[in-house]
């Protein structure tokens, strides 16, 4: 397939792997920020090609995983109302709230629908004027423009039976939170290519300089990731801490300016709680006052919710790259994709689910055992 196969060639991948080995003289810990990259790394076995000294740790860039438990509970409360058609991207439906997930709401008679774009949810609202249509607006900067466009259009066209439950998060504040943590191990980043397609990468310069970490904007295909790792290791070995762009076929320094303008028009920057991590200041998006009437939390009065995470789940540590999934005592036993304790086991982009699916419990146990020896 054009523009895909070219980035999945075995000889080229092996070539990059050899090049990385050649320049690596010391152990390095590199975090890929985005869940899409985690998925590709585990699916294609990219980390297996790397020299032992280069360790990839998986970052907090899976929107499903970092959406806080109480927000899932809010979604469930709204979706359970008889007048509501609740629209969501598919992989949010299986994320467990405190007591149940959205699939259970659907099974109990709630009108919960999978859509592929917030604009589809807007169409549902137009087609069902007697219903309240709510879209679960989760995601990073990548999904923000489309969600902003849905609200903008709803406002423009006077579609008042539409609202969004917002849980938007931003990548750079999360990277800073990780870097300033006392338990941080991350020495370099592969920044999320799609986030940077929207936002550009100018905002990463100050982070690279302040924390002295190389940041390489990286794509999602195996060769992208291997090249990103190569560029990152090269910087580390040479003692540089710069922002570089591997994903030049998609990312420009300034990003997508009209998309950014739309985001700024509809959203403002707010503090957000990240599941498993806690609240990070200035790390999310909320609706601006002029669009506040499209806020589902206000509309359905679900503003004050609190929820307790499973004490056994270490997804917060996994998301910060401190622990690997198989280092969790519940991994593959009390926590599986069928019965997840935390969100990293739910989404296909979640580190725990990716390990479970592509490594298997046995292989992971083996890896853990080998590591101990």
């Amino acid at each position, binding site marked *: 397939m054009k523009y895909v196969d070219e980035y999945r060639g*075995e000889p080229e991948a092996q070539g990059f792997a050899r090049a990385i080995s050649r320049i690596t003289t010391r152990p390095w810990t590199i975090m890929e920020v985005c869940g899409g990259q985690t998925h590709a790394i585990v699916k*294609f076995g990219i980390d297996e090609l790397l020299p032992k000294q280069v360790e990839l740790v998986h970052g907090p860039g899976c929107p499903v995983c970092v959406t806080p438990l109480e927000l899932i509970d809010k979604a469930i409360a709204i979706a359970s109302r008889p007048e509501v058609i609740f629209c969501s991207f598919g*992989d949010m439906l299986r994320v467990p709230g405190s007591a149940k997930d959205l699939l259970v709401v659907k099974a109990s008679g709630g009108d919960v629908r999978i859509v592929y774009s917030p604009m589809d949810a807007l169409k549902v609202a137009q087609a069902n004027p007697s219903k309240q249509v709510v879209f679960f607006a989760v995601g990073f900067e990548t999904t923000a423009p489309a969600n902003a466009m849905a609200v903008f259009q709803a406002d423009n066209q006077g579609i008042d039976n539409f609202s969004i439950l917002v849980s938007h998060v931003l990548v750079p504040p999360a990277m800073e939170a990780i870097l300033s943590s006392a338990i941080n191990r991350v020495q370099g980043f592969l920044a999320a290519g*799609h986030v940077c397609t929207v936002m550009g990468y100018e905002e990463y310069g100050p982070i690279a300089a302040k924390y002295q970490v190389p940041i390489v904007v990286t794509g999602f295909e*195996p060769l992208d990731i291997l090249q990103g790792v190569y560029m990152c290791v090269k910087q580390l070995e040479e003692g540089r801490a710069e922002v570089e762009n591997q994903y030049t076929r998609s990312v420009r320094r300034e990003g997508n300016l009209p998309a950014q303008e739309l985001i700024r028009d509809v959203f403002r920057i707010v503090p957000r709680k990240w599941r498993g991590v806690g609240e990070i200041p200035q790390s999310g998006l909320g609706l601006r006052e002029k669009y506040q009437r499209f806020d589902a939390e206000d509309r359905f009065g679900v503003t004050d919710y609190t929820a307790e995470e499973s004490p056994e789940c270490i997804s917060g540590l996994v998301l910060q790259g401190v622990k690997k999934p198989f280092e969790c005592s519940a991994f593959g036993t009390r926590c599986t994709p069928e019965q997840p304790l935390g969100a990293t086991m739910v989404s*296909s982009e979640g580190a725990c689910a990716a390990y479970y*699916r592509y490594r298997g419990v046995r292989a992971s146990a083996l890896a853990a055992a080998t590591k101990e020896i």
Partner: protein
Amino acid sequence: MAQALKEFSLACPIPIEQYPTVLLAHGGGGKLMHDLIERMFVTSFGNPLLAARHDGAVFNVDAGRLAFTTDSYVVRPLFFPGGDIGSLAVNGTVNDLAMCGARPLYLSVGFILEEGLPMETLWRVVRSMRQAAETAGVSLVTGDTKVVDRGKGDEIFINTAGVGVIEHDQRIGPDRVRIGDAILVNGDLGRHGIAIMAAREGLEFECTIESDCAPLAGLVRDLIAAGVEVHCLRDLTRGGLASALCEIAEAASVGIAIKEADISVREDVQGACEILGFDPLYLANEGRLVAFVSARDVELAMQVMKGHALGHGARMIGSVSCDYPGSVMLKSRIGSNRIVDMFTGEQLPRIC
């Protein structure tokens, strides 16, 4: 019988002006039900066993082994590119018999119809079943019709059960899988899954992706007739290739090693998967099988498959090994290994 065998008419035999939709009475045991059975089902599926109008079909078989299977069909939407619930209900059960190494002979059909179903819709489904049965060389010999209250069904549910005869001495099943067996697939993967998904969700791709729905009994018969030692067969329906291989690896306590580069996925299906975040290994097929054959018969098996209309795109995708018993190991395109596991629930489209 004369009525049953009379020339098949393409017009709906139930007068639309009188009964444009299915009524509860069409399943009530009275005149309306009698008319529906006589005019639509007996005429369409016309064969002597059905025309006997008995409570069941009575037939002779040669002494030997029989295969018997059943499946229910609840697909949404009822009609999709490349097939419909009717052809699916025939081919699905035919294929289950074929996977037992049997020659499918007779099918039963149970319809559960929702009150208010347009008669024309039922007629389209029945015509499609007739066509599929003819292509697969099976007869629909007994049946049942129930009508449920509006809102208590979803237009049409169909159950089919099938009987087939096994006309050879080979035993086919997971317990016969041996280390070294070659693993063959008769073509590209994932078309049915994407066709249904596109039709259900109103997704528009540049071109229409058609389901691969087809009867596989002929292909299996050719393999066996050619003398290929077939150890295990599985049609790659829900859960796709990945789930079928996982089940066989576990049941046979063997390791299965496959190569991603050898698995054929059409470009349009691959494109849809890239957009939706799906893995084609898990997508449903309705005209694809995986065959475990003795290593020494690989060439013969490939030759037979490629010589059959449903096997032009056949590929050998891997082999059975003694490593990782109970697991499926995939060599990815870039040359690393990963485990292929069963999926939890359905594949759900990813956010980004």
